[in-house]
Structure formats: C-alpha cells, structure tokens
C-alpha cells in the first residue's frame, strides 16, 4: 500500500512537473554464473500444480529461459507422503498431490551433482464472499463503466499474507505492475469490502475471476523484493538487489539457486459482467 503510493506520487511528479525522460541505453554487462531457477509451488486448487525448472541467462538474452528437463524432482509432506515428479514439457514438472491447509511440504531437486531443497507451508485462506459488479458514473479518478469489487473477510490474528490474481476472460493479468500483494497488519480481522479490482472499466460479458492466495511470510517478502525489482523507474528507481530464495543447496559451498517454491491456500470467485 504505502510504498506503491509513494512510487506513484514520485512518478507523477517526474512525468508532469519536470522535463524528465527515459532512454533505453546499451550497457555492456558481465556475464554471471548460470544458476538453477525454480518457479512453482503447491496449492489447494483442484488442478495440478507445476514446478518449472529453468536456468538463469545473460540479462539481455531476450528469449525464453532455457528449460531444465533432466532433473530429479520429488516432493514430500509432513504426513509422510512422497512422490517423484514427472517432467511433461519445457522443464515443467507436474505435482500429483494436493496442498492441505496447515501442512508443510519439502521439494527436493537433484541436478548436475547438486542437491537442492526448499520447504514451504500451505496457509489458511478466507473464502471470498462475493464479487460485485457496479456501473460507475465518470469521476475525476476514472471513466464511466463497469467495475468489480471484492468482498472477503480477513481472519482474526495478525500474520496472514496474501497475493491477489485477476483473470479477465481466462487470461491472468500479469504485467509487472499487476503483481498485487498484501498483509494484515492494518486490516487484521476486518471485513475487506468494496475493494476495487479494476481501474479501467470492464465490458459487458467479460468473465472476471479473482483468486486470493494465502502465502507464507517469507514468500510475501520474496514478492515484496521482486516487486521492487520489476517495477523500477522514476525518482524512486533502485539499483538491483537480489531477490531472496527459499531454495537451498544441501552443500553450502555448492552452486546457488534462485526462485521460489511456495505453498498457498487459494480461494476463487468468478463473475460475468452484465
């Protein structure tokens, strides 16, 4: 909430008040070590979760990340269940088991003589009460049209962390600025009502789905750091700082890994605009 407001203010200032300008420039960057990158997790959704394994690439290599297809990947929970994951395509490994709220999950990856491990938890998630569509008249802030509002109760007890996902006609809004996360320090146990989802109006027949993901505190920190890295610009631009990871090499002197293995309790609701 806070930092994004400040960024917003500073960016408005930069654009409107000053003759500032942004130029894309050429920089000769050193090439770093190639590392294993993990992108995936386990959720309560009734669809298979995936773990995607890729490699890091030179920063300006403008093509999809190289896939890792020959890793041995397994997942285990704290109830003693364990399974080996199958690689289906392009480094995507399918998780068979479903996440259960309160359980701890351990991901194990063996790749090129190194063994990596990551631990996460699936957190409780409140059910979304409803998504409400309203037709709003034009105002200073927005143009006339259909807007969707989220109604969800926040459970009592500080320490809940969330990621929100919005799908319009089955496509996830996934621009860097769409990454939306929150924590409950200021809203603990309150009803989260009338939370506006879109700032440009939707159209009739649009199918809007909202997912609330309850994530771990560390995963929230990961997203916070990631958000700072992918939404850079303006007066508040920061130099790159490495985003944390929960993937650890069992050999502390071994090659590092990047990315995150995150568990999430998910609740979802869909509404058709009409």
């Amino acid at each position, binding site marked *: 909430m*806070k930092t994004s407001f400040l960024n917003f203010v500073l960016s408005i200032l930069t654009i409107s008040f000053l003759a500032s300008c942004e130029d894309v420039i050429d920089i000769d960057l050193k090439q770093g070590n190639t590392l294993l990158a993990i992108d995936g997790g386990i959720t309560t959704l009734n669809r298979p979760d995936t773990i995607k394994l890729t490699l890091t690439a030179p920063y300006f290599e403008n093509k999809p990340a190289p896939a890792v297809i020959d890793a041995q990947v397994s997942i285990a929970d704290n109830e003693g269940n364990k399974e080996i994951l199958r690689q289906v395509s392009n480094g995507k490994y399918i998780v068979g088991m479903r996440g259960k709220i309160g359980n701890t999950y351990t991901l194990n990856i063996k790749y090129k003589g190194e063994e990596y491990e990551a631990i996460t938890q699936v957190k409780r998630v409140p059910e979304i009460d409803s998504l409400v569509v309203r037709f709003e008249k034009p105002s200073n802030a927005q143009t006339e049209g259909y807007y969707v509002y989220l109604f969800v109760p926040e459970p009592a007890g500080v320490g809940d962390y969330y990621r929100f996902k919005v799908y319009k006609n089955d496509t996830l809004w996934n621009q860097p600025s769409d990454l939306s996360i929150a924590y409950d320090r200021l809203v603990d146990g*309150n009803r989260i009502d009338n939370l506006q989802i879109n700032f440009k109006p939707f159209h009739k027949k649009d199918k809007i789905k909202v997912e609330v993901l309850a994530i771990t505190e560390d995963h929230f920190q990961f997203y916070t750091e990631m958000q700072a890295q992918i939404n850079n610009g303006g007066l508040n631009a920061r130099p790159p700082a490495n985003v944390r990871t929960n993937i650890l090499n069992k050999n502390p002197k071994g090659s590092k890994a990047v*990315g995150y293995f995150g568990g999430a309790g998910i609740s979802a609701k869909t509404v058709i605009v009409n």
Partner: protein
Amino acid sequence: MKTLFLVLLSLALCFAALAQTPNKNTEKYTVSGNIKDLSNGEGLIGATISVKGISNVGTTTNSYGFFSLTLPKGTYSLVVSYIGYLNKVITVDFSSNRIIDDIQISEDHKQLQEVVVVGNTLEEKMQSVEMSTNKLEISTIKSMPALLGEVDIVRSIQLLPGVSTVGEGATGFNVRGGGVDHNLILQDETPVYNSSHLFGFFSVFNPDAVKDVKLVKGGIPAQYGGRLASLLDVRLKEGNSKKFVGYGGIGTVSSRLTLEAPIVKDKSSFIIAGRRTYADMFLKLMPDSTINQNKLYFYDLSAKWNYDFGQKDRVYISGYFGRDVFKFSDQFGMNWGNITSTVRWNHVFSPKLFSNLTLIYSNYDYSLGVPSGAQAFDWKSNIVNYSGKADFSYFLNAKNTINFGGSIIKHHFQPGKVTPSNSGSIFSPYEVAGQNALETGIYLDNEQSLGKKLALQYGVRWSLFNYMGGRTIYDYQGVAGQRKTPINERNYEKGEVVSTYGNFEPRFSLRYTIDEGSAIKFSYNRMAQYIHLISNTTAASPLDIWQPTTNNIKPELADQIALGYFKNLKDNTYEFSAEAYYKTMTNQIDYIDGADLLLNNHLEGDLLFGQGRSYGLELYAKKNTGKLTGWVSYTLSKTERQIDGINVDYATGISNWYAAKYDRRHNLSAVLMYQPSERWTFSANFSYISGVATTFPDSRYEYEGLIIPHNSAGTRNNYRVPAYHRLDLSATLHAKTKNGKKGRGEWVFTIYNAYARRNPFSVFFRQEVQKDTPTPTTNTQAVRLSLFGSLLPSVTYNFKF
C-alpha cells in the same frame, strides 16, 4: 562522569595558567561592541577589526556582529573592514574596560566595477585557525545560475570543494564521504530536519531572508555536535532598523515577498519573508479533469523580531513555517513541513564576556491519506524537539578566547499513526510506538595565539544521550543480513532511562603562518551522532525516518584529520587552498534487502551496522575582485563502506568493503561571474562529477512469467553510472541608476543544463512492457532516467520598493 570532571578541571587549570602569563608590565583594557551595516542596521558576521600600525593584532565579529578586543592602555586607530564594504577607521581609547557604541560601516557600491583591495577580510583567512570552511556571500549565491531561476543555498554549496550530491532530485548534500543526515543544518541556531521542498528539488531556505551562509567540513569547533560530517550555519537577516523596505521576485516556479521595517528606530525591527510556488495554478487551466484537480505546491514563511535593550542585551524571536502540499485528484493527498520557533537572548556580562541563550521548539510532521473508498486512511507522523542552549565567549586577553556552554535537546519521534478515515474503510487503527530521548552536551574550548606564527584552537565536547522509556523495549537476535527476531520484551515507564551513551569529542585545530600570504593548517575532530536517517529513496521523501540511538543502535562516531595549505596572491585578489582529509566512521547504519521501513514496530530488527572511511584531496582557487570573479574547485576522493550482511563474499562469508553510492571520484566545479557594466552581470556554472556507484545485474530468471534481474556474484555497487556534467548560464539586467538613485527592478534570465545533456539520475533495468496486453514480453532493457531531458530556460523579475 568522574573522568569528565577531571578533564574539564585540567583544561580549566591549563586556561588559568595561560591567563597568568601575559600582562606583566602593562595594564590592558578590553573594548567591545557591535559592527553593523549603516544602511539597515544588520549586524555583520565575520567583520575584521585590526589595529593600525600593529600587524597581527585584531579580531573578528561573531555570529551576532559582536567583537571584543584587548590592548595595552592607550589610544588606537581601529580599522573595521568587511568584504564589499568601505573600510572605516575609528579612534578608540583603551583606558578602561567598556562597551562602545555600534560601529556602522557602509557598502562599497563601486566595488563591482573596479578592482579594489578588499580590506583585511581575506587576510583573516590567513589569520584564523578555521579550516575546511567556506563562506558564501548571499550576493554570490544570487548571481549564480539557478534551476528554474530559484536561487537555492543547498544547490550552491554543492559547487564547493568536498561537497557532492547523488543527483539533481536528491535531497541535501554529502560532505567528505558523509551521508545526507550527517550534516548539522542550522537556521538561526535551529536544527532543520528536512531541508528540502518538493522531494528535494528546492531547499527550505528563502534566499531573500538569508544574511550569511557558512559551511564547515572539518575542524568543527566544540560548540557544535550531534552530526558527523559538517555544519551548515545559515543566519537570517534581523530586519532593517532604519527604514521600511520591501522586495521580492516573480519567478517561473515561485514568487517571493519580504518586508522589513524598524519598530523603534535603531532599537527594534522585524522581517517577514514568504514564498509560494504556483505550478498548481496552471494545472487548473488544464481542460483534463484528471489533471486540473491535482495540487502540488509549497510555501514557506519566516518572521523575526528583535529588540535592542541597550548595549548589553538583545532579544530575537523568530519563527519559521513551511509546508509542501500534494493532492492527486480526490484519490490521494500528502503534506509535510517544519514549524520552528526560536527565542535568543544575547547578553554582554562585561566587555570580556558575551553570552547567548537560545530556546527552540521545532516540529516536523507529515500526513498522507486516501480520503474516500474502501482503502480510506489517514496517516500522521511527527518529530518534536524542545531544546535549550547557552553559549559563552570569554575574551580572556588578546591571545586567548575561551568558549564554553551546554545544550539539551528533548526529542520525541512519532514514526506513524494510521486511522481509518471513513466508516467503510478496511483499515484498523495502527500506531508505531513513539520514541523519546534526551541529548545533552557541554563543551569548553580555547582559541589561543602563540606568537605571530602559531595559533591553536583546542577543546572538548562531552555528549550524553539517554534513550527514554514510555514504550515496550526489545532486544533483537539473529544473523546479520536477515530480519532479526524481537526478544526480551519489557516495558519502560515514561521518564525511565533505557540506555545511556556518553562520548568525549576532542577537537583541535592549528594554524602556522609561513609568510603574510600563506599558511598551513591542521585539524582533528571527533564527532558523535545520536539520531540517524533511515531512507530507502534517493529523492527526499517526507516518509524518511529519523531513528534515535536505542539499546540496539549505537551512536555513530567519526574521526577526521585534515591538513591544508592556504595562499593569497596579489593583495588577496586570488586565493588558493589545498586540503587533504582522512575520515573514519563507525556504527554506520543500513538495512536488509526487503526491509520494512514504514509502520514497523520492529524496524531495529531490519537494520545492519558497519563502518565507513573516506579520504580525499580538495583544490580550490578563487578570484575575489574585479569584473571577473569566481572559483574553480576540484575534489579527488574515495568513500567506502563495510556493513555486516551487505556485499558478502559467498565463499568466505565476509562482508567486503564497497564504494558508497555517494563515492564520486572526480568532482570539478567552476563558477564564473562577469560584470562588464553596471547594468549587466553574466554568470556560468559548470560541474563534472564521476557517476554514482550502483549495482548492475549479470543475469536474469523467470518467475511466474515475470523477469527478475540477478547479480550472481552478489557484489554491491559493481558498476558506475556515466559521469554527470552540466553547464548553466545566466544574465542579470540590473535596474538603471538615475540621478544617483538606483531603480527598482531587475530581470534574471537563466538557462539550466545549457547544452541539454541527458545526465543520468539513475540507470535501472526493466522488462519491456507492451501496452494493452495482459502478458509481458521476454525482452529486458536498461533505461537511463534523466530528470532534465533538455535545457531549462527561466525568467525571474526581482523588485524592490
């Protein structure tokens, strides 16, 4: 406490011994008084009094225009001089200790048109023990080209040796490898916490109200403490005690108006000076309703009143009120500002003993909020200070001036308090526990001249900081580099002391005169700092946090040595100096990646600690008189930091030293002013500064379809942004002089960034965004952000009545 007492006692004994050595055969008498400007009654700071026919004897006025001079019995011709003023010779009888009537001198209006020898003021630089000090005349600051025509003190001092900034839109300034919070900025003795308006583009000082600006980078006298790097001493005008005057200006960004008048002629006067920007008024003219509802402005107002109760007492009461307001439609609003009020009382106990008592109240606050909707909230934060200080100067004899005194500051910090601002808000009230502290200091020092060649200033400041209760206190445990967990929760009552830190801060300066035109100076100082700025933005954000020293945060300490060579040439037309310094700093503060700086009751758990070092060489050449005046300054320096948990070598686990962001290897500035005729003044600034240190990635990876930059070596500040250079030009058309009377208006034309260089404010990396698609591309790019993409012309009209 005991050791302190012993040190003070031994110093006192040392002083007493000094006191007894001179005046064996002749009686000596002390005469004191004030030196003022004849036209407006303003006290002149740093004016020189020398004795005709006796070289190396003399004194200078203090910050209030007061001087004290001790000479053997007799009648002397005293020469009073001040830069830009005509010398005045007065005959004074030294046959009793007494305070004489104010000495009034008048400005030399011819000075700018022909080469004149400027009295002894510059020789003073040779005589004084003071080094690493730059005084900027307000008239010089006003002649320099300014950004959008807004004359700015902080931007002007950035052109001095040893001073740099991390960017045009960045707050404050960095002195000799210090952070922006390491500068003690005093406006009429009152500390200024946030010296910037508008996110750092302008500073809070209204140039029309300023009388004198002095920057001290080393050899800081024992009177001053609480910051590591420098003292910026800004003195405001007292108000014309002779006649009513008004002046102001209409500029591209803001308009100014200042009024001064006597209340009782030659006894009491006031000044009131105000400024306001009006960019938002133009916004109203825009047809687009999403823009014309926005607000963005700042204003400031300073007022001062003084009363002269005769030769012995003078009282000053002053107030400052400044505010920035930002409102984006009805969605978001933010405002912040400083309020200060100061009472000062000068009392002359005897011709030998001058004192000043100051009482200060200051309040810096900000609030922001969303007025409507589900996310409606109101957030307030403030820093309140009450302080008092007493400073004494005892002019013991012609050879020794003893300064002593003490200060006490009561700090209260309220980092943030959030309340929901309507009934439908999703937010609950939340408050970060406030912090209280008491900072005290006492000092004693002596300025002593030992013969004609050698002069010393030595002293000690003893500072004490109490972190006070009134909240829950924690200790923090964990690994450096990661968030630490609070342990040992306990409550302290209000008034209970949580932790105490005391520090001796020795100060020493030496001047050795080689010949009439050259001198060598050396200084050492230790400084302690107890309140720290925690900021995650380069721009001055009102959300920056001032954090006191606590049970978990130790005071910052700095030790600096400096050695300098000073030379004046051709009757002081030219001056040259070379200074080298070395500085170490301990308990430097940084924070972990992903630190939660705002509304965090456990901010201390996110902080990291380490050390810093800086060394450099500063060269400075200045031409003081003639049609062409100005200076060239060059600084070669290196500033590094080592913080536990930052720049960690993966293999060894050691936190290595790295270049600080404000490490600017080469820093060259040139300021030239040319006045070919009475009507025109032309001026130019040029600056070249090595690029700031920054971290660039060496690889990237994908997460949920988004591309994250990564630096696989983990080294901090591994690259340099390209160098910064800029030329600014200005021309001032002065009013015509008719029948010996000067006109009332002048025009200032300015071009900032004259050759339109796109200087990098930052270089950042991002994923290319294609508009109106929900999914990003896989392309990444490096982007240079320039705050000023082109040249910025502006016109200002200044008037007088």
